[in-house]
């Protein structure tokens, strides 16, 4: 509802015009208004981002402040909790809500950053291999085999251990280790598209290789890439968690969700919320990103069957019939 109101306020022309005069961006808007998953995912992601940016300031409690007299306080809904620490406190008496909110920033940065790094590497190699074929393809395949043969987590640990852990290093290392899915998908999609007539036609009208890649190939493999991207964001956040768990990711006392889960494991049986709360946060983030990705794929795919509801009811089949009968 709110989403629709905003959309209508910002782009009134998208909702009043005749269907045949709609520009692509207006069609995008119209479709997104009708896609429940997209709206839900987008709203939830925006809320998470908002909380990540402003949350720590709003509650005004430092995530680093220790108070050993208030160790392991339970959250408000468990017996013994109080309003001072809504989510309770951790083993060092730090406020858990503040730590989760602050951890949002780090998890989001690492998730998107690492997936983005992986996407850039994977897509560029995949398109090169798929479009040019021949020895380029063989070389890329060799790289892929090497990457798949390496034990990823072990390598990440070694690299982070050698360079020294920081957010940038963690993002780069996770990104560099997670490009294989992007590569495989973009390569096979490119191979399929390369031989289609519209690529030949683009060639015939004088488009260069780069113009063909950027204008004909990338837009047409984007649907698949979006899905992989949303998957990889989740995977990256989880691998940050496992790196932190092993002690080579984000260093304490900086809070990240992965680290919170790692620290909470000692108290798993007696204070389960220490794991459950960051776990729920992680779950919500991954779900919202996946729903957003699925929605984006449905909306940007011109072949999708999402209805464009219009005030003036003109189904496309009618338009077609009119045109046919005119001939």
């Amino acid at each position, binding site marked *: 509802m709110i989403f629709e109101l905003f959309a209508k306020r910002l782009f009134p022309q998208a909702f009043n015009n005749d269907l045949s005069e709609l520009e692509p961006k207006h069609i995008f808007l119209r479709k997104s208004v009708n896609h429940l998953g997209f709206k839900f995912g987008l709203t939830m992601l925006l809320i998470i981002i908002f909380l990540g940016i402003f949350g720590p300031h709003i509650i005004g409690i430092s995530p680093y402040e220790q108070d050993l007299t208030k160790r392991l306080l339970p959250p408000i809904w468990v017996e013994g909790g109080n309003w001072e620490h809504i989510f309770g406190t951790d083993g060092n008496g730090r406020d858990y809500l503040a730590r989760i909110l602050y951890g949002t920033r780090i998890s989001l940065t690492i998730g998107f950053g690492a997936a983005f790094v992986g996407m850039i590497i994977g897509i560029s190699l995949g398109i090169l291999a798929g479009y040019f074929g021949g020895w380029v393809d063989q070389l890329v395949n060799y790289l892929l085999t090497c990457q798949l043969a390496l034990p990823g987590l072990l390598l990440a640990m070694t690299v982070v251990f050698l360079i020294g852990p920081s957010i940038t290093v963690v993002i780069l290392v996770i990104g560099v280790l997670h490009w294989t899915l992007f590569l495989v998908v973009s390569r096979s999609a490119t191979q399929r598209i390369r031989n289609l007539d*519209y690529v030949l036609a683009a060639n015939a*009208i004088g488009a260069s290789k780069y113009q063909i890649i950027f204008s004909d190939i990338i837009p047409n493999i984007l649907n698949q890439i979006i899905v992989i991207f949303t998957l990889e964001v989740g995977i990256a956040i989880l691998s940050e968690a496992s790196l932190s768990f092993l002690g080579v990711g984000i260093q304490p006392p900086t809070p990240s969700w992965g680290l919170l889960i790692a620290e909470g494991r000692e108290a798993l049986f007696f204070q389960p919320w220490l794991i459950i709360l960051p776990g729920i946060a992680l779950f919500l983030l991954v779900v919202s990103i996946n729903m957003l990705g699925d929605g984006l794929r449905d909306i940007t795919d011109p072949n999708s069957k999402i209805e464009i509801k219009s005030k003036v009811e003109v189904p496309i089949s009618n338009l077609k019939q009119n*045109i046919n009968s005119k001939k």
Partner: protein
Amino acid sequence: MNNFLEIKNLSIAFPGNHLVNTLSNFNLKLDKNGSLGIVGESGSGKTLSMLALTRLLPKQAIVSSGSIDFLNHNLSEIDNLNFYKNFSGKKISMIFQEPMTALNPVYTIGRQLMHTYMYHNKVGKKEAHHKSLEMLSAVKLSDNLERMKQYPHQLSGGQRQRVMIAMALINNPSLLIADEPTTALDVTVQKEIINLIQELKEKFGMALIFISHDLGVVSQVSKNIIVMKRGEIIETGKTYNVLNKPKKLYTKTLISCLKNLNTKHKKNKSKKNDKIIEVTNLSKFYKLPSKLFSAKKIINAVNDINFSVYEGETLSIIGESGSGKSTVAKMLNGLLAPDRGEILICNKDINKLDTKERAEIIQPVFQDPYSTLNPNHTIGYIIARPLILNKPFLSDEIRNLVLKTLDLVGLDKGFYYRFPNQLSGGQRQRVAIARAIILEPKILICDEPTSSLDVTIQEQILQLLKDLKQKLGITIILISHDISVVKYLSERVLVMLDGKIVESGDTISTLQNPKKEYTKKLMSAVYEI
């Protein structure tokens, strides 16, 4: 005594926003040994009616009314189990359009034939084997013992279709339904298959329902005819009557489209203009990757051909699939480098031209309207792209030019912001033509521009090409396997077979008095009304 087959008021709907009958009030009567042709464009419901008869309808389909009587049984009262056991495959058999996908690729021909026989008859393997061999010789395949052990991919399209026919007839059905059995085949093979179906119909004494979009073919095969459009029967009656005295407007246009295509091209005494294309000793080989212990295989796709094209004329290249005509088209366009020989366009070697310069001289129109347009671009952008790439225009100028070109190819300006998936096949092909002519090239290469379109649309597109030729004075090179299209549009013709030019010359004289054996065979395979 009832009829052999009678379908009354059959209506089929698909659930959607509004329940629209995809097939409405379909009636059909057929005698034992009778033959019936159903003609219509794609989406006219001709296949749907037969799928209802064989219970192969898609799951969502709703049969909203109607009854089917077959051999004194009311088919709607028979449950599925009984139907599949006693009717489908046994009394009613069907041949499908695509022989490439209708056979299971992992089983041998023999196994598939024997299985079909053994499923309906309680017989042993030996007898089934014997029967299969008998059927294979009935459909005139040779080396049958050997064939039984072969897999579908080892056979050609025509041979596969013969196997399909053998499989359909092995249980001696009393009704054979042939759904576009020859559409995917070459013309010469098409003729053989149609003759075979007719012959077997007499031999086995069965009724035949022949579905096709090609009025010429149907008129050869069947005594009665049903013309369909948008799920409704437009006209029905004896084939001769319908063809010669059509009552309804749609039938008339359908027939006139065919006749128009078949009328002889008025020979405008074209002055011999300058040569615009000169091809000398052109060859293209494909090397198959070498396998272990076997030498590299080389296929001559195009083998040492010479020809030239004069400015302002229309030249056709005819040939079956695999004759190398599309390879020639791609090389002429500079999209494929020749292995030997030279292509001079306006006295310049095509492969040494800058791509932008080349784009302004020669442009292609491709066969498949569904892959020729980038699905992610709007129609406006697709047509404008050649301009954006090649000429420094202002965006307003480009928009105006695009709208002008849209008008020229007969499309409304409302198409500007549409995406290709909202367009029909014919409209897509118009967009492809618009994209090709917006740079005002001198030469247009049309590679089977109409072969995947319906007859009426086909005529519109050909008419459009003809108009454009007159308005813009473009030289057109037309690649086609369809003689009527060639006759309609072109002044000169080259006949290709296995990568070589077999015969060439003036369209009318070459096609009316073919000198070479192959051209004669090609011409004899054309059905005219």
